[in-house]
């Protein structure tokens, strides 16, 4: 289990994350919903051990993490960022992107790497004939798949998706989400999805957290429908979706 316990992070005067606790379970999808500026990206960076909190603890498998252990643990928590194009080194080829974690984190030799790359491409449905292409020559969907493949290559215990699906065309988003959902069932990996989009949240989640102004305001342990929310703000979030749903007579 990956846990945040009473985590606080400040940037100057601004408190980005204020006394937040949450659990990311193994073999399940946890979702954080919140508007932009609610501090969810900061939380994501802390959970993926890139930044350390000002106070509070990030606990990975019952062990507290600090700056030293963060490096050793880095393989176990992988982050997929929002914009695929800018989160990949533009001068690398797709194969090099996947090769790097295989070589540096897992120490695979060349033959093993090639085999594993093949498997990963199948998992995320990345076309193999595009592996030799530069990142900048790939389409948006292919870049996103490559980002996911790279994260999977490290064989992590947890993958954090920080707004990874916003900004995609809706049909592509659905494609990738269905793929991830199937993949989740096969793998022993915990997913944490951070999003402002309720559709994505409801589609993927086993547990939902709602965040606002840096605080965790609501937890939905067993989301069955939109209507289970209790807090006013969460209900407000749901209202537009409900409103549209009524119009479609669903």
């Amino acid at each position: 289990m990956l846990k945040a316990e009473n985590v606080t992070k400040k940037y100057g005067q601004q408190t980005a994350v204020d006394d937040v606790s949450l659990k990311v379970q193994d073999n399940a999808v946890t979702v954080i919903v919140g508007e932009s500026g609610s501090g969810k990206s900061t939380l994501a960076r802390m959970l993926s051990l890139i930044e350390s909190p000002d106070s509070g603890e990030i606990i990975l498998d019952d062990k507290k993490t600090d700056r030293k252990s963060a490096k050793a643990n880095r393989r176990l928590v992988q982050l997929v960022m929002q914009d695929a194009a800018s989160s990949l080194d533009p001068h690398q080829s797709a194969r090099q992107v996947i090769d790097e974690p295989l070589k540096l984190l897992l120490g695979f030799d060349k033959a093993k790497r090639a085999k594993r790359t093949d498997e990963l491409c199948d998992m995320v449905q990345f076309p193999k004939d595009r592996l030799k292409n530069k990142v900048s020559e790939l389409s948006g969907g292919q870049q996103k798949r490559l980002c996911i493949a790279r994260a999977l290559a490290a064989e992590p215990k947890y993958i954090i998706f920080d707004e990874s699906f916003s900004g995609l065309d809706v049909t592509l988003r659905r494609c990738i989400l269905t793929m991830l959902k199937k993949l989740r069932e096969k793998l022993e990996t915990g997913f944490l999805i951070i999003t402002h989009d309720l559709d994505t949240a409801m589609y993927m989640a086993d547990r939902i957290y709602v965040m606002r102004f840096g605080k965790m305001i609501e937890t939905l342990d067993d989301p069955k429908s939109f209507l289970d929310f209790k807090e006013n703000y969460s209900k407000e979030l749901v209202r537009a979706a409900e409103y549209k749903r009524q119009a479609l007579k669903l």
Partner: protein
Amino acid sequence: MIGKILRKPQALIGIAMMLTVFAVMIFAPAFAPNDPGKVDIMQKFAEPCKQYPLGTDDMGRCITSRLICGARVSMSIALPTIGAIAVISVLLAAVCSYIGGIVDKLFVIVSNIFMALPPFLVAMTLVGLFESKALSIVISIVVAMWVWNAQVVRTYVLREKSKPYIITCRMSGCSELRIILRHIIPNIFPHLLVLYSTGLSGVIIMISSYAFLGLGLETGTAEWGAMLVNANKLIFSHPELIVYPGLCILFAAAGFNLFGEALRDICDPREG
């Protein structure tokens, strides 16, 4: 990348001009119709003719030959200078980024002090230090100019380092050193190429202006700047003498500048 360069006329013109300069530099003795140093006072201010395609100067030396050999002198000083500046600035920027913290701060302080000194002043102070005039010119320009380039390269490195993909690289297990060598430097390489090819044109002009100030090479050396000074006093009687070396400096500097700027447009269409 190469395809894009070939499709851009500005880059092609720049390359053609650069190649011309290099060709003239390498094959200077073969091109030169006469000995550039040969003084023939009987022939002074000769009209352009078969033997002297551009005529002769006030000492009866063949202008064409002097211009051609001048390319060699200029470039043989300019190239090592820019090379040294490139090595120093990339190395420093990489070290600053790798170690960071106090080393980086120290670098900023030292470089700010150096930047407060006008490069020409530094260069002029140092130019007399060494026996060999050429070497002292190289060293004085390097000492005067390294800080400007190192600052720029450091900014490139820092800017590249703040891009989101660096986080992805860390996630993939890259060490700091690997991030600098394998990710940052390849990505800023086109920018460096631009920086140093435009920088080269600056150095060419600087060398010529040294000669113009009388700080350069031995008097009588066939060098563009020196020719310019020499022609200065004849500006009213024989203005063409000042035009020829001037055009040569312009040609070489413009060639590198054109190429560099075309390269920048290709690498980064949003900037510039």
